[in-house]
């Protein structure tokens, strides 16, 4: 490496450091401000312990940033602050919602989970020094992922809540393994497809159709998705699983046929699901008829209340703590976007969605920048899962598609979801940073060098 090139790298690094630190500070300020505002809105005064909250939040967020910088020096500088901002805004909104429901301790619980998530993020970065080391455990990880996905089915520990069997109760802890399972599946797919993409990409016949024996995996994934739908009655998880598989397959092979085939299979699966399950029919019915006068207070209640929240918020919203989002059932989890819509308006919702779009953009950019196909596919997979999940819940809440209950990543109520999102962000950071080697840090030879380059 020539001195000039080294200096350039160093300068890029410094710019990145500065960008990352500034963005993190902005995210901290915005998050703490949102927390203060919700208190003013809900109770007419700044929340008690605002200073403590601000200090703890700032120390954790900046500490996290420092740890990321140490462990993944060349990591994407935007991802971490964006995640912090989403987490901070979500937490402020949860405090607002839970205070109105006289259970602020639920929000504090989520604050703890957010901190745990940060720990997991740093821990993942510390543990996974090089993402490619995951490429070595293709099937172990795949099986582990499948096991996690299907864990709720196991009698005795699987628990059914609200008609969906998503929970695992181990006696001392209850959690939703689906999201963590999805990440493992993505790692498996990145590994599996990375190894076989050449093979899968060759087609036969005039339309370059995949060979019959290559259809195995896609049918298997389709079956697994249907299995999740049938056994756990979790439309959201099933949709995400199949969606990410098809996208990764298409990206890996570049063959449109897989995409078309996937869409056809999706349509068939959705139709079977609609016929087989009354709760799917109820969801579809509620989606179409949410605003009908005779359903608006019953089947359509949650969706219509969500719409009312958005509509009442209008362009700029009522202001944090000044709307009535607590009229919406499950506003803290599935419907938290409607709470943003009511109190921060179209501008606030657009800002939140844009933050996700930033994450998606950075994730795909990381995929383009990496040269290893496993790394590329991993970044694509994680980004797709995240982006699709945001789309599915946002479009569900906005009544673009039938509602499937998945949390809004990083924002919604839910400990498992936060930990899973933290792992996802950590993997993207690690992928973008490249492997971590414990070596002497390169320094520019002299300060003058720097100046010369800069001029």
């Amino acid at each position, binding site marked *: 490496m020539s001195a000039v090139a080294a200096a350039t790298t160093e300068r890029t690094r410094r710019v990145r450091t500065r960008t990352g630190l500034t963005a993190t500070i902005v995210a901290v300020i915005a998050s703490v401000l949102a927390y203060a505002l919700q208190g003013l809105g809900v*109770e007419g005064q700044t929340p008690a312990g605002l200073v403590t909250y601000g200090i703890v939040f700032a120390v954790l967020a900046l500490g996290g940033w420092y740890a990321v910088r140490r462990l993944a020096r060349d990591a994407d500088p935007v991802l971490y602050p964006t995640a912090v901002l989403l987490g901070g805004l979500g937490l402020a909104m949860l405090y607002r919602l839970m205070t109105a429901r006289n259970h602020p301790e639920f929000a504090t619980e989520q604050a703890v989970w957010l901190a745990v998530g940060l720990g997991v993020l740093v821990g993942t970065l510390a543990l996974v020094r090089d993402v490619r080391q995951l490429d070595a455990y293709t099937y172990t990880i795949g099986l582990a992922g499948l096991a996690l996905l299907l864990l709720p089915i196991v009698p005795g520990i699987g628990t059914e809540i609200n008609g969906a069997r998503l929970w695992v109760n181990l006696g001392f802890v209850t959690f939703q393994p689906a999201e963590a399972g999805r990440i493992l599946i993505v790692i498996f797919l990145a590994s599996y497809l990375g190894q076989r993409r050449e093979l899968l990409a060759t087609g036969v016949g005039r339309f370059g159709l995949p060979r019959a024996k290559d259809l195995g995996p896609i049918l298997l994934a389709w079956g697994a998705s249907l299995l999740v739908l049938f056994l756990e009655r979790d439309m959201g998880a099933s949709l995400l699983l199949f969606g990410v598989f098809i996208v990764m397959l298409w*990206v890996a092979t570049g063959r449109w046929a897989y995409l078309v085939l996937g869409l056809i299979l999706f349509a068939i699966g959705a139709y079977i699901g609609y016929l087989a399950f009354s709760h799917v029919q109820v969801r579809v019915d509620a989606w179409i008829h949410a605003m009908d006068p005779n359903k608006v207070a019953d089947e359509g209640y949650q969706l219509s209340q969500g719409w009312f929240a*958005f*509509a009442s918020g*209008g362009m700029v919203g009522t202001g944090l703590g*000044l*709307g009535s989002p607590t009229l919406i059932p499950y506003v803290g989890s599935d419907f938290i976007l409607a709470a943003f819509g009511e109190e921060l308006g*179209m501008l606030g919702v657009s800002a939140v969605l844009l933050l996700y779009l930033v994450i*998606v953009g950075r994730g795909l950019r990381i995929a383009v920048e990496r040269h290893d196909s496993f790394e590329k596919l991993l970044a694509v997979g994680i980004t*797709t899962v995240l982006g699709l999940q945001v789309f599915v819940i946002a479009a569900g809440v906005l009544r673009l598609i039938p509602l499937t209950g998945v949390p809004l990543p990083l924002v919604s109520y839910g400990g498992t979801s936060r930990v899973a999102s933290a792992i996802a962000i950590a993997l993207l950071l690690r992928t973008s940073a490249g492997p971590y080697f414990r070596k002497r840090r390169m320094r520019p030879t002299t300060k003058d060098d720097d100046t010369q380059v800069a001029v």
Partner: protein
Amino acid sequence: MDRQIRRLGIAFVALFAVLFAQVAYVQVVAADRIANEPANAPRQIKAEYSVERGQILAANHTTVLALSKPNPDPASPYKYLRYYPNGELWGQLTGYYSRIYGRTGLEQAMNPYLSGTAPEFATQNLTDIILGRPKRGGTVITTLVPRVQATARRALGTHQGAVVAIDPSNGDILAMYSNPGFDPQALSTGSDQQIEKAWQQLVTDPDTPLVSHAFQDLYLPGSTFKTITASAALENNWPPTKTWKNPHHLDLPGTDTFIQNFGDEFCAGGASQVTMEEAFTESCNVPFAEIGMALGADKMSAQAQAYGLCKIAPVVGQPAPCLNDTIPFILPWQTGRFPQASYFDNNEAALARSSIGLDNDLLNPLHIALIASAIANGGTLYDPRLVTEVRDATTGQTITTFDQKEFSHPLTSTSASELRQMMVNVVDHGTATLAQIPGVVVAGKTGTSANTHGPPNAWFTSFAPAGQGQTARIAVGVIVLDGGDLGNEATGGQVAAPIAKQVIESYLQQQG
């Protein structure tokens, strides 16, 4: 793979674009329509209560009929509370503003202005949003004169009944009070339980305080209706001096019933002939029944319609609905009623009774005061006006005005002048001498209409000053229900006329 990844990026941008489009649709394009759905009531009420609702003021711009003040309880979802400083004095006019039972009266009629949602507020609201100022409703300015209203309440005293005072030159309502009234405060502030309890009391009260006798009820007008019959005669060029047969009883054609004078007295001492003028002064029924029959159904119905009474097709045992729209008013009200001409076909007896304010004739104090106003101002019937303008609460600028409007010309100025003189006679030496005011020429007409059960209702309609060439400044309609404190002995002249007198006096004194 990079090609696919870039395409995937485009696909995500497209997916999110769909989300942004839907957000814009729900939150901006269709926002008003969605937010105004009835099922969104909790948010609508909360939004309404977070606006500082405009005040309702009397004509003097200082007396406050209704105002909003910040809620002392910061934890309440309702940021402002509605207050009515004068309690029940204006209750039936302002109406109530209740988060449970909705709005009535001016609170309902003027709601777009009071809440600042009327289109006229668009610019102001936008400025408020940009400057971060709280949204405020407009100030509604009424035509009401507090002193006259207070006098009306005091003059009625414990009597059930109503008083309406109107400025004859433009139809402005100076006072409109009905006893018993209600205090809107009880329905507007307090806990849900308190409001529900107050509501239960009001709706179960047999005296129906939520309904104003002044303009929301209808009663047989009795002899006050003779102002209409006399108008029809004068318009038919039958002068006040035209003589009519004056039997003790008038047998009604086609029936075995007859019409007698009030108290079965002889009119004009039992003279065989009597002028319309004399019959009017003494309020004799027999000659006016003759006049009505002589005019015929078409002319009687036409005259009643010209005065704004709506047409009805009476059915025995049921209240008949109006067949046509007549005089508009800002508050929901009952206009007077008179049968359409065809009802009197082969039913002369009904025409005779209708000519003296019986049968299916119906009026209320507001309508009788409008009729008096038309006579007083030389023949123009104005729409009653309660609100003159709406002003910006902050700057005081006028946002919108409500102009006076003519409804009809029920009689010529000549007829009006002749009828005025006939009404002056009533007060000077007729049935309403108790309405005399020293130094002021008062015109009036009494009425006493029997109730099916209990003592009669006493009426009086009047205006002043009513001298030759004078401009009348106030017209008053009064009803005292169930005879007031005179019971069966009650007459319009005894019970209602003194009330009108006090109201007229209070207004003319104030005017100087």
